[in-house]
Every structure is written in structure tokens, then in C-alpha cells.
């Protein structure tokens, strides 16, 4: 088997919370707490989870937009988590990101041409190539060349997201991290963007890390899926296994909670009690034990390890 494109090993990201008059660091928000996974070339890894589970932070850590507290990230076998800022800048050729909010992710003062031009300038394309490339990119994402002279506010949400995708594609990256790329869009526009992402993946042999809270969207686009809860991956498997035979109680609850647009379907629903605990003060032991319908004494005390239980299927639960 070929080496994975990206390997994430035991990464942690703690945000210090300042407390007290003197602002001494007393506690940490454990946004990402010991997460490991791999992304293979050409596949889509989906990361799902609810707010505060650390899925966006994980994406930003791989993008080196945030500094790791601990752990290593490897890209094509080379460690990228110990590089200097200048070296990171050069690796950015391989990584690009698509952001959630298409309204906020484009500079409102720049024309579309300049927005897409930016990565090309930074990575040293010459001028003639750049203009051709911009036209080509606009057409790839389903816009037209004359859109280049407009400003972001003249476009709808879906069109802006296309522009964001064009910018991400500009320098032929190998990995695209898509952070909730469709959750700010209308239903009928969501499917346009999802289809576009799938087409682009085929055409350019892209690898995606697809971060979303919507389980149906993640199921549609991903090959493998990781479920996160409070900074940890609780279950990771290929899509079929996870959605048909998810083992972690949280995965099961999450799946049963998704409203399905089919009024005839009557399902047994697992409704979890309580709220998601704050990552500043996570529960002891298994972080899910406060809401888990099956929790036992051991869950309150011991942190479960992510164990492999089948081909590419790992779960972190004492009871599995």
C-alpha cells in the first residue's frame, strides 16, 4: 500500500484561557486532544462532529494556520509540523483551504481577478500565464471570464463559494481542506457545490479533508469518515462501515438524530440527554460518559483508547 498523503500523529491544540487579575494562565481549552489519522491520496476523508468538537481546529492545524501544541503532521512522508514560517509558506503550494463563509472569505475590496491572482503571484507564475490561468479557473468552477472584473458583493453565496474554490485550485494543490464549504448555502446551491467538488476531485486527482457537521453531506462526499467529540476522534472507518455498522454510542446517536427527508420512515431514535460539555472543562474518563446511555463505572475513570476493531475501523469506547 502506498504511503498516505497526510499523516497526523497525536496532535494536540490547547488554547490557554487567562484567568485572574494578573492574567496568569490557569486552564486550557483542549480544542484538539490527541488526534491521529491518515489521509490517502485521492480519497476524501470526512470529519464530522458537533460544535466545539475540534474539527475546524484540526483542519487549521494541518494548514499550519494554528500552531500545534503537541504532535506531528507528515505530508508525503516529510514532517511539516516543525518547519519555520518561511518553509511553511513554500509547502502551502500543496495545501489549500475552502472556507465556510463565502461572504467573509473573499476580500470585499478586491476584484475577483485579483483574488484568484493572488496565489499565482505568490507562487511565482509569470504574468501572461496568470491571466490565462484565471480565465481557465473561472470556467472550471462554472463561472465566466467576464466575472473577473466584478467585486464579491455582486455575486450570490453559491457563486462566491465557486470563486473560493477557484482560488484554492489556482496553484494545483494536492490536498484541499474544505471547512464546512456548503453549510452557509441554500439547499439547491449546496448540491451544485457538492457536485462541483466531486467533479474536480476526479479531474485533478485531488485529496479532500471535508469538515462538516451535516452527516448526510459527509456521507455523500466522503470515502472514509471520522467522528469527533470534544477534541477526540471517537470512531473512524470507511463510509459504509461507519454509517451501517457504527459502533460508538455517540456515532449511533448522531446518526439517529439526523432528520431524514422521508415522512414514511419511522425510526427508533436515540435522544441524548444534556448538552455538549465545554472543552474548557471536559468530563473525566471517556468525555462522552455524561451523555452516554450505556456508560458504566469504568467510563467515568479511564480514558478509552482508539482501538482497531476491523479493517480500517477504529473505535474509542470501553464497551466495544
Amino acid at each position, binding site marked *: 500500500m502506498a504511503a498516505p498523503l497526510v499523516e497526523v500523529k497525536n496532535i494536540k491544540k490547547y488554547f490557554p484561557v487567562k484567568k485572574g487579575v494578573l492574567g496568569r494562565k490557569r486552564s486550557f481549552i483542549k480544542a484538539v486532544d490527541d488526534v491521529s489519522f491518515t489521509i490517502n491520496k485521492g480519497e476524501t476523508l470526512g470529519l464530522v462532529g458537533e460544535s466545539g468538537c475540534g474539527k475546524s481546529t484540526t483542519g487549521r492545524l494541518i494548514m499550519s494556520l494554528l500552531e500545534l501544541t503537541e504532535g506531528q503532521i507528515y505530508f508525503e512522508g516529510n514532517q511539516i509540523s516543525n518547519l519555520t514560517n518561511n518553509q511553511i509558506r513554500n509547502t502551502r503550494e500543496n495545501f489549500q483551504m475552502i472556507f465556510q463563509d463565502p461572504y467573509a472569505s473573499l476580500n470585499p475590496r478586491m476584484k475577483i481577478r485579483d483574488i484568484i491572482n493572488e496565489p499565482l503571484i505568490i507562487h511565482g507564475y509569470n504574468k501572461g500565464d496568470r491571466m490565462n490561468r484565471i480565465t481557465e479557473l473561472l470556467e472550471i468552477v462554472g463561472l465566466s471570464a467576464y466575472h473577473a472584473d466584478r467585486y464579491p458583493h455582486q455575486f450570490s453565496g453559491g457563486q462566491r463559494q465557486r470563486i473560493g474554490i477557484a482560488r484554492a485550485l489556482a496553484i494545483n494543490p494536492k490536498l484541499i481542506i474544505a471547512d464546512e464549504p456548503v453549510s452557509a448555502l441554500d439547499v439547491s446551491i449546496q448540491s451544485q457545490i457538492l457536485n462541483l467538488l466531486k467533479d474536480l476531485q476526479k479531474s485533478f486527482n485531488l485529496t479532500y479533508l471535508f469538515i462538516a457537521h451535516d452527516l448526510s453531506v459527509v456521507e455523500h462526499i466522503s470515502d472514509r469518515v471520522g467522528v469527533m467529540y470534544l477534541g477526540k476522534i471517537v470512531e473512524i472507518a470507511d463510509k459504509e462501515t461507519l454509517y451501517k455498522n457504527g459502533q460508538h454510542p455517540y456515532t449511533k446517536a448522531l446518526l439517529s438524530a*439526523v432528520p431524514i427527508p422521508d415522512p414514511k420512515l419511522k425510526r427508533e431514535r436515540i435522544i441524548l440527554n444534556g448538552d455538549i460539555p465545554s472543552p474548557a472543562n471536559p468530563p473525566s474518563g471517556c468525555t462522552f460518559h455524561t451523555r452516554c446511555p450505556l456508560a458504566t463505572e469504568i467510563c467515568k475513570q479511564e480514558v478509552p483508547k482508539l482501538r482497531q476493531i476491523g479493517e480500517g475501523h477504529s473505535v474509542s469506547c470501553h464497551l466495544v
Partner: protein
Amino acid sequence: MTEKMLEITNLKTYFHGDDGVVKAVDGVTITVNKGETVGVVGESGCGKSVTSLSVMRLLHDTPGEIVDGSITFEGKSLLDLSEKEMRMIRGNEIAMIFQEPMTSLNPVYKIGKQLEEVIKLHLHYDKKEARNHAVNMLKLVGLPRAEDVVNEYPHQLSGGMRQRVMIAMAMACNPKLLIADEPTTALDVTIQAQILDLMRKLRDESERSIMLITHDLGVVAEMCDRVVVMYAGEVVEEADVLSIFENPKHPYTKGLLGSVPKLGQDLEKLDSIPGNVPTPANMPKGCKFAPRCEFAMDVCWKKDPSLLATNGNHTCRCWLYQDQEKILEV
């Protein structure tokens, strides 16, 4: 005979902006019967939220104005009431839940105080009774530690808890009609499941009518008896929930259903509706959906079809289902 709770007839709400009139709601007719949950579905800008604000008559802070139509609640015409009379209906007989639970609660008052205010205003309880009622309502909506929560400020609660407080507030005076505008959109999936479960329970207990405004077809399928699909300020299709999902008529409804990925259904490609939702500046002349419709005919570009029954209670605004003679006339 089913009893009609709310009847919106040919409602037109226009906004007067810098660039002329925006017809946010343009001739909408929706009926909500007693004990029924009606889903109003549509994408951003289709006028679903403006419709609900029109019913509550909460448009005065906006440049919006109801220019035509009638809204009847239990036989009373809401548009003819004075602001004072309307205030007695708002929160008492018709209650509303908004999408964003953070901004709909006043951050400087304690939860209990905000709840008691509503209770005292409508039910005329004294302070102690109001407090008891507030705590009971919070318990009813499943908030743990209800006695403590009344003494807390909104920022101390999580999003799901705040939405429960909002529901408690809406339910406090036992309203006959509940208008919920995207009540779970801002919430996480597992919390959404809790809130939907709660709303179902509250509805089944007391034959309450609910008008549920949402863009999420999954929520509609789980909650609603009847569904109204809106597009660009108009109702394009209305039917009972089974017919909408099993046998959608309007190309927009079909497109919408096809573009949502369903859990457990593995498709290589989703159907998608090409193009974008029309902006007020370039509203099509004929059928508003024609520019995005794969079945668009000549007539569709010329004249907007009317909302007609295709069979029984299933109505649809589309030339494909209208009399050939009428098409020829145009």
C-alpha cells in the same frame, strides 16, 4: 369539519428600499388548521420569514409594509387590530420562536425576569405565581436545574438551553398557535433532535397549531402534516406531507428534494437546480422559476401561472399542470 386557526389570504408584503420596491411576499395564501403542523419550506429570500413577521405584525422596525391581503386568526382580522390589541395576542395566543436564541433574549436580564414579564403581562399573575409558573415552564421544556436557571443570565446557558428557554417563553401563556422560524437551524444535530422531540410532545399534548418555517426538508418530514413550498415570494406548491415527498409536482420541489443527500442513500451525483435564486433586481417576468427550470416552455417566460389544485388538496403553481386552453390564450 376542521377548524381554521390561521388564514393568510393573498398576503402581499413589500419592502421599500433604495432601489425601488422589493416584493418579499407576493400574494401568499396559507391556512393552518387547529392541531395541525404546517411546514413552510423555501430557501433564503423566498419570503417565508417575512410571512411570519407579517402575521405577528412585527414589521414596523423594517422598511416592510403589508400592502394587500388579509390575515385572520380565529375569525379575527389581525390587520384591523390596533397595536395595543395586537400586543395582547402576541405572546399570548400566537407565540413565536426565532432562529437565533442568543439574540432573542435580552442579555442584561435574568432568565426568570424575562419569563415572568411575559407571564405577568398576559396572565396577570402576581410575582410569586409568575415565578412558580416560570419554573414550571422551564421544567416542562426539559431544562435541568430549572430553579437555578431562572437566576442566570442568557450568556450562562448553551445554545440548546437558550432555545429551550425561548420555547418555554413561547409556551408560557399556552398559545393556540406557535410560529417557529428555523427553530433548530442554529443548533447541533443531537440538540436539534432534543428540541424537535420537545416540540412534538408539546404539540401532541394540547392540539396546538404550529407553523414551522424551515429550509430543512428532514425536519419537515419529521414534524409536519402539511407542507407549503415557497419560491421568490410565492407559494409554488402545497400538499400533505406524504404527497410532497412521494409525489412532488412542481419542478422546484422536485429539484429541492433531489438536491438533498439522504442518509443511507449513496448516490454518485446529486440532482441540482442550476443557477441562483433570483434577486429582486432581476425577478423574471413570467414564472419566477422559469430561468432555472428544465421544463420551461414559452408560456413560462411570459406569464406567471396561478396556484391551482391538481388533485384534491394538492395545489401547484406550474404551467405543466394547467389547462392547455389557458396556455393557448396566453
